């Protein structure tokens, strides 16, 4: 009987035919539509950011695992996901070395230093992004306009602030239609703007059961409710749909907050986690110093995840 009890950290798997690697690669696949949309909207420089981010992440993990004589796990797809998510969190026209340094930091400090997959406390892609934001704010806040329709893939770019940045500066909501926000006709990070493409990947993940609705729904609902209540013209006047469709909320709620390793274990814990992320995101957006709060909110809740686990433990039948 004892050899059937396996004690391990997340990711935990139930079905025998699934492996961590298979799930990771399918998650990476589900991320591709958002990247393709980003490249289509912002031009070829976005493609370079994505390629550099992914390649640097994989090479960093390979080098570190060779140097420390550990098992080489680059084929399990988790470094690829980290590289993709980091690139998706960057503006389209950053210098070439930015995604490289970000990926190196994300893998080396965000993941490997803790002991590799399953041991990290924080989402590695967000660790990399926050490091880049604190180090080179000038490049991390220089966003470009979407390419005019019909231009095709090109390297041209015109700078433009994101809707959330304009909201933070002028307190006036940009005159964008919700449909425009949904399709991604706005300035922003590569992988966050096209909600449609993101949702394509989300539907796939939900259908296969690789993520559950608990974290994303509680996260997004909390942001919506909070921003509705604390609106600019007094209570219950907030534009909650604008807030849900802006910034990195959809990308963060579905692809980063749901990371198995850094989120709580139980469904109840997921709900608490999502609400916490939502509250922090909304507070930072409305009253904090930054226009967008998704990355900091998720990182802070990552730190709280073990605490949430302790209080939402599944009760064993027969004990009080």
């Amino acid at each position: 009987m004892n050899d059937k009890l396996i004690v391990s950290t997340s990711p935990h798997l139930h079905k025998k035919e699934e492996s961590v690697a298979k799930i990771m690669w399918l998650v990476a696949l589900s991320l591709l539509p958002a990247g393709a949309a980003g490249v289509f909207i912002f031009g070829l420089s976005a493609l370079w950011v994505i390629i550099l981010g992914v390649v640097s992440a994989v090479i960093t993990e390979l080098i570190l695992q060779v140097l420390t004589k550990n098992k080489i796990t680059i084929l399990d797809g988790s470094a690829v996901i980290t590289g993709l998510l980091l690139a998706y969190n960057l503006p389209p026209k950053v210098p070439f070395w930015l995604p490289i340094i970000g990926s190196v930091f994300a893998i080396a400090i965000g993941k490997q230093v803790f002991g590799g997959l399953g041991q990290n406390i924080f989402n590695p892609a967000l660790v990399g992004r926050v490091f880049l934001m604190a180090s080179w704010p000038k490049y991390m806040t220089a966003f470009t306009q979407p390419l005019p329709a019909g231009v095709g893939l090109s390297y041209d770019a015109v700078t433009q602030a994101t809707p959330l940045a304009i909201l933070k500066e002028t307190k006036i909501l940009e005159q964008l239609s919700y449909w425009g926000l949904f399709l991604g006709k706005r300035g922003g990070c590569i992988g966050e703007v096209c909600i449609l493409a993101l949702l394509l990947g989300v539907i796939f993940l939900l259908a296969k059961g690789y993520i559950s609705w608990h974290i994303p729904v509680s996260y997004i609902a909390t942001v919506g409710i909070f921003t509705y209540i604390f609106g600019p013209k007094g209570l219950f006047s907030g534009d909650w749909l604008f807030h849900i469709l802006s910034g990195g909320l959809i990308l963060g709620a579905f692809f980063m907050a749901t990371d198995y390793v850094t989120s709580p274990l139980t469904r109840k814990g997921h709900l608490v986690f999502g609400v916490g992320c939502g509250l922090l995101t909304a507070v930072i957006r409305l009253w904090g110093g930054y226009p967008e709060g998704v990355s900091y909110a998720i990182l802070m809740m990552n730190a709280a995840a073990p605490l949430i686990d302790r209080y939402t433990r599944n009760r064993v039948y027969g004990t009080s």
Partner: protein
Amino acid sequence: MKTLVREFVKGIIKENPTFVLALGLCPTLAVSVSLSNGIGMGIAATFVLIGSNIIIALIKEMIPERIRIPCYIVVIATFVTITELTMKAYSPALDRALGIYVPLIVVNCIVLGRAEAFASKQSVLNSLFDGIGMGVGFTLALILISGIREFLGAGKLFGHVLIKGFEPAFVVGMPSGALLVIGLLLGFFNILKEKRQ
């Protein structure tokens, strides 16, 4: 003579106050933003260490054991006041840059720690060399950390730009960057220590 040299050398590598004993990390984190600050703090702390170690070793028989800490503090505070007034007179820019961390040398764990662990039990000559060794070790650690942080965080060394067009990572100059740099250096030195065994 050999013992004296050993007391001096241990403060530099084997019992380096920053990377082995992990003492005095608070001023290290705060002050290591630039090389000139780091060296200035290192010299000031070394002077206080040497002075307090000598005096405490001289009067160690006279101090009742139950009130030894306040007695050490009085001695250390005297030397820190000398240092502070000298700094204010001859290098006011350094004093302004170090700010409150000059008076805080009084409670620097290295100074109080060596007084308690060494000077109160050993001869004056041994305590002198221990003080010099610890002070030099602290200063070398500060030079290493400040050099890295000033170069990566501000792109300069001693206030001069080294590589034109180099984009420094601002976070390295901030407190979070200090913790990152010191943590990574500590890990690196631990690896070296393990390899040697």
